[in-house]
């Protein structure tokens, strides 16, 4: 085995030829051991696949170098879980949020060493994630060295560069995580196949498994199907992104319309399958006997499976929206170009004549044209010249002492505003008490109004207002503020029968928010 993964997080990633020298158990280039170039290529491919797993093994090897007692953690497991989490949280536009991934990683880390402090768990999760990104190397990637035989039978050592988790810019300027194809291959194995056919196979398998009640296997299959869905979305995302930037670089006559049709067909197909699966699982879940431990396990698995399939459906909806937007986007871009007036003279084609040819060159040659472009294209800088007199003044001026507390603030003139609130504090309290519903027992608005009316003739108005407000609850705000519960109202179509109010008889209830997850995330952010 000639492939030796570099030590991740080692700044000088490029190994000199000498440094990788002792790698050669196969190093002697004498008689050619491989029977032909095809076998050699196959070997190289397997060596590369092997190299992709090296950073995971490396985690456990390097944990002894950390300051502290980290022997109790199975780092490779955490690393694989991190790749898993990033893949599942990857969105169509952006990648996975780093904080969310870390928060979800924590329970596993904590379970591995429950006696250790939470701060250490956090440090481990962070270290693993950073190692998977390989923070500290300038490329933030890994490099492995492998050997091949050239056309003339000469043995050549080559560098294979790859990333497992990469950082991408998000639309809000933040940094998000995406798993690379290599990582998905490491994760699920042999995924480098035709996405569609693999998807169909997984579906068939899933249906059969569910029919037979083999839920544990079905869950595995469903999870694999979800990875494939993610991969499919990723392929499409790239194609659409390229289209958005560059209309003519993409074949809008055939390739892209075909791709979109195919994807839409695929989505329609998947909807049918997934809805069928949903029905089947619901049946399995509801028929399971909850009182026996076996039945309870069955029920739990079915519920998990349900979540996975629902997530698949959500992803498909998103993909479909994107597909439908692609056509209008193309037409808008095309219009913009078609109506631009052609110039009289012609200039240099910067892309076709400069950028594209430069990218093809070996880097040691490519430096020359880019250097020339930089020297002539970056503009000029006026050199700074200092007079001795100024310099002396500058150096002798004592530094301006800044007031520690800053300037004094004038007292603001406050005018008491008249209290013109419609409802009193006591009324608000009464209404909130009324709406303080247990999480598992939502109520109809009509009942709440009737109860409020018995207390105070004005109170129903306030209750109705609060209920309507809860129809679009500020989930994000509540989440950020770390609230544990949130009032919500849903319209199920029942009309409201009330002497004072009309409209829908809303169902009002409390939703519990994941307080533990939020706390972990806030801690990360802070």
């Amino acid at each position: 085995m000639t492939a030796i993964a570099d030590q991740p997080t080692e700044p000088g990633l490029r190994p000199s030829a000498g440094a990788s020298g002792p790698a050669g158990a196969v190093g002697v280039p004498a008689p050619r051991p491989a029977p032909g170039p095809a076998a050699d290529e196959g070997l190289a491919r397997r060596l590369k696949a092997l190299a992709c797993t090296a950073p995971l093994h490396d985690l456990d090897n390097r944990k002894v170098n950390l300051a502290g007692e980290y022997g109790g953690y199975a780092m490779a497991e955490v690393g694989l879980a991190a790749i898993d989490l990033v893949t599942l949280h990857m969105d169509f536009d952006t990648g996975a949020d780093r904080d969310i991934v870390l928060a979800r990683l924590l329970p596993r880390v904590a379970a591995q060493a429950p006696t250790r402090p939470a701060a250490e768990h956090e440090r481990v999760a962070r270290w693993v994630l950073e190692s998977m990104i390989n923070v500290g190397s300038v490329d933030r990637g890994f490099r492995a060295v492998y050997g091949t035989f050239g056309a003339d039978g000469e043995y050549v050592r080559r560098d294979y560069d790859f990333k497992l988790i990469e950082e991408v810019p998000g639309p809000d300027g933040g940094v998000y995580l995406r798993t690379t194809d290599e990582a998905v291959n490491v994760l699920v194995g042999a995924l480098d196949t035709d996405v569609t056919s693999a998807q169909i196979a997984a579906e068939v398998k899933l249906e059969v498994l569910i029919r037979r009640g083999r839920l544990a296997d079905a869950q595995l299959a469903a999870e694999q199907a979800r990875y494939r869905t993610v991969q499919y979305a990723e392929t499409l995302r790239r194609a659409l992104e390229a289209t958005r930037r560059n209309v003519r670089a993409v074949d809008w006559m055939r390739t892209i319309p075909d791709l979109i049709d195919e994807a839409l067909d695929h989505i329609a197909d998947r909807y049918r399958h997934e809805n069928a699966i949903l029905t089947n699982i619901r049946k399995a879940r509801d028929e399971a006997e909850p009182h026996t431990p076996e039945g309870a396990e069955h029920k739990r698995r079915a519920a998990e499976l349900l979540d996975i399939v629902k997530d698949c459906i959500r992803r498909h909806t998103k993909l479909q929206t994107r597909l439908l937007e692609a056509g209008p986007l193309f037409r808008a871009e095309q219009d913009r170009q078609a109506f631009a007036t052609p110039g009289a003279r012609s200039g240099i084609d910067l892309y076709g004549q400069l950028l594209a040819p430069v990218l093809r060159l070996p880097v040691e040659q490519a430096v020359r044209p880019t250097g020339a472009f930089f020297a002539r294209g970056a503009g000029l800088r006026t050199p700074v010249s200092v007079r001795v007199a100024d310099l002396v003044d500058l150096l002798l001026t004592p530094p301006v002492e800044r007031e520690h507390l800053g300037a004094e603030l004038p007292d603001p003139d406050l005018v008491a505003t008249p209290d013109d609130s419609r409802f009193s504090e006591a009324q608000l309290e009464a209404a909130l008490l009324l709406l303080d519903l247990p999480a598992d027992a939502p109520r109809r608005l009509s009942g709440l109004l009737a109860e409020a009316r018995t207390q105070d003739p004005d109170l129903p108005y306030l209750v109705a207002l609060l209920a309507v407000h809860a129809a679009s609850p500020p989930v994000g705000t509540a989440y950020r503020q770390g609230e544990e519960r949130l009032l919500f109202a849903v319209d199920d179509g029942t009309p409201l029968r009330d002497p004072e109010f009309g409209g829908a008889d809303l169902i009002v209830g409390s939703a519990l928010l994941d307080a533990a997850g939020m706390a972990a995330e806030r801690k990360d952010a802070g």
Partner: protein
Amino acid sequence: MTTHHDTSWAAETEPAAPAPITPADVADAARLVSFGLQAKLLPARDAEYAELVRRHREDPPFARLADAIATGMGLVVLEVSPRAGMAVAAAEDSLFAVRMGDYSRRAATESTDRFLHGLAHLAVAAMAFPRPEDLADDGYLGRITVNGVDSFVRQACRRLEEQADADGANTDPASDAPGLEAAWRVWSRRTATGATKDARRLSGSTTGIVAKAVLFLVDSGFLQKVSDDSGGTYRTTARYQLQVRDLAGSAAMAELLDLGVVPVSDGTASLLPPDTADDLVADAGLPFHSL
């Protein structure tokens, strides 16, 4: 000012007697050059500058004087016009030239970083002026974003990678000859962005390198910031177009020819219909704004 007009008038009516150059003329001409050195200053914003530009256009001896001063200082005059002012660029080895080593300390030692910084500048220009007409059309304003430039280059790299895969070529470079690695691989394997402790852009990432280039060009008076969208959105100025068209493009092209690479152009564009060109096609779908 009126006296200068009299002298130029005299020069035109009596060509035999050249107008005498007074120290005041030299001072004015040097003043014009100094305005030109302030790249962000435009004649539309400064009455004195506008007057000197007008005089440069109407008074040939004064124009010659100003050009001579600029040349003597190590400057190349690209254009003197109301829209661009006195657009001057640093001649090679001039006092005003920017050296890569001053620009980025890392680029001074690492040849891959030197390449990446140079390529970022080239890519910014290529994205700002996607078609040859855009570079030629004086009224054209290019528009770029930092993230857009990075994904533009990445897309080009991906194309080359796919092409190499289709050809069955092994693009992994030999370990003992890193300089022979294909240039596109250097960009594509560098991280696009990265989280840092102080929430700033990772300077070694490709978006960091592009952002550095863009900020530098803003300081050179070549770009103007429009918004913070997509890592920063910028539009080009007339000076940038001149600089790229008349200096940088041809300088890079000369190096390329020197390396034996002859980029073929039929004069119009590399905007070929997609079915005939599986090859890379110039970037036409970029958002641009023509005046």
